[in-house]
């Protein structure tokens, strides 16, 4: 029970005394593991000082000053860091650090470990006389007696192990009206453009389909003309199957191949270069197949022989 502050012990003693119909002081003493106390019984802090053989006596100096109201016996207040460490599962080093930090915060001088300096230390601090004058008001201790620490260091958790750093809050705007207005205008512009274009340019309709008369040149739809252009350089297996097949699969695999997490263009120059190369290659091949291929899919200049291309 040494670890519990006296005011808490007293509270549970009162509760138990009430339940068992016994005397409060008797139960209290029992809980503390002492003989039934007489008001004068608690040892003065000074008496604890000679216990110099307790290994880290550093904090024993400040402990009496810490809990003067409770006026505990020397045995309970003396801090045995090893025992405490085992009891609470807190490393000794951390306990020492906490003690040092508290001493520093309260502007007190920390006594070197092992030194029996308690007399000078505790004597210098004001609460000691108060502790001496204490015995009578013990019957009704305040909820948290002055100078009693009500919290202790349980453990220190390294930041990052448990803490998840969420993305920082970003600047946001309402979709209505900001985004919807822009989208609406964009749709209307495209719709208007499409209608106007459709009014003036008719979709092609050539003669009735004739299986016996292949037009020269015969071209695929424009988005396949890059492939058709490749067909004039490579074996059909390569140009018609392997390149588009690998192209499509390669396209789908981009996120799994590109492991670079950066999104800034300056940090992913290689990826941008490779992708741009293929986009430009496709654009050039498509343009070439569309406008620079005439009868027999031979090379022509569109401005000399005309355009052999239908949408």
């Amino acid at each position, binding site marked *: 029970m040494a670890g519990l502050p006296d005011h808490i012990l007293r509270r549970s003693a009162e509760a138990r005394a009430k339940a068992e119909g016994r005397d409060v002081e008797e139960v209290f003493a029992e809980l503390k593991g002492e003989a039934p106390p007489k008001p004068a019984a608690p040892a003065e802090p000074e008496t604890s000082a000679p216990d110099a053989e307790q290994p880290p006596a550093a904090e024993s100096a400040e402990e009496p000053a810490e809990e003067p109201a409770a006026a505990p016996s020397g045995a309970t207040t003396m801090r045995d860091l090893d025992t405490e460490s085992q009891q609470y599962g807190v490393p000794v080093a951390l306990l020492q650090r906490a003690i040092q930090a508290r001493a520093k915060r309260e502007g007190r001088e920390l006594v070197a470990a092992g030194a029996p300096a308690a007399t000078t230390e505790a004597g210098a601090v004001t609460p000691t006389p108060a502790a001496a004058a204490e015995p009578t008001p013990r019957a009704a201790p305040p909820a948290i007696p002055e100078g009693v620490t009500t919290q202790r260091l349980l453990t220190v958790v390294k930041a990052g192990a448990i803490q998840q750093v969420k993305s920082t809050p970003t600047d946001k705007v309402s979709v*209505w009206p900001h985004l919807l207005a822009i989208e609406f205008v964009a749709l209307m512009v495209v719709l208007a453009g499409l209608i106007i274009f459709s009014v003036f340019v008719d979709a092609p309709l050539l003669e*009735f*389909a004739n299986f016996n008369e292949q037009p020269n040149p015969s071209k695929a739809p424009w988005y396949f003309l890059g492939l058709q252009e490749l067909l004039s350089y490579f074996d059909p297996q390569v140009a018609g199957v392997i390149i588009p097949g690998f192209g499509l699969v390669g396209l789908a695999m981009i996120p799994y191949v590109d492991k670079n997490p950066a*999104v800034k263009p300056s940090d992913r120059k290689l990826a941008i270069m490779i992708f741009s190369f293929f986009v430009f290659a496709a654009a050039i091949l498509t343009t070439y197949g569309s406008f620079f291929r005439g009868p027999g899919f031979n090379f022509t200049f569109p401005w000399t022989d005309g355009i052999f291309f239908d949408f």
Partner: protein
Amino acid sequence: MANGNGRVGLRQRLSQAGDQMRSSQLWSSIFRPGSPFRHGYTDSPRNRSYVIMNNVLYHLHPVKVKRHAVRLSYTLCLGGLSFFLFILLTITGIFLMFYYRPTSPQAYLDIQALSTDVAFGQLVRNMHRWGAHLMVLTVFLHMARVFYHGAYKPPREFNWVVGVVLLLLTLLLSFTGYLLPWDQLALWAVTVGSNMALYSPVIGDQVSFALIGGVQITPDTLLRWYVLHVLFLPFIIVVFMAVHFWRVRKDGGISGPL
């Protein structure tokens, strides 16, 4: 509410009628709370949220987006425009279906009749064709935009894959539609295009056979591609679009800023 003559003016009557209509049960059952069309709508941050939250658009848009996302230069609206063009193509396509029969001489004659006998027939056909080409373009540009913004990086990898499937489906939709006018352009463009499938290793013949319903393009191919074009592929693409849009939201909305 009276004017100088002691009589109720037309303007006031109209505005009263408008108020009455917007306060009616029918009206407020159609427009959910927060709708700008509702009686007593005021522009407030709360109502701006309700406009989206109480709207079918909530399936597409969150209540708020990052500020850079509304800059036109970031997305150029390419994804949204692709979707819009798909809807437009569905509408014009349904119109065209009323006048089109996928059989051998009739298909061509129907297209001819569309441009001469049907009100707005030619315009709608033009819109359908140009819109289709434009959609191929916007889908492709949307893909390029997403790449250059690095928007395919985790956690959006799979949505990129879905997007590639959507690009392929868009091309297939356009390609199957190409045959339907049943003119020389359609027949031979599709012949050239589908001949490429013949070169597939091992199963080339089978793929080509399944695709065109025979060893060469016949009127049967027309029916086959018609069904693919108006039912099968739109169905598939809608499923993939639903996943695509849903993943955009689930993966944290629009990417960036750079």
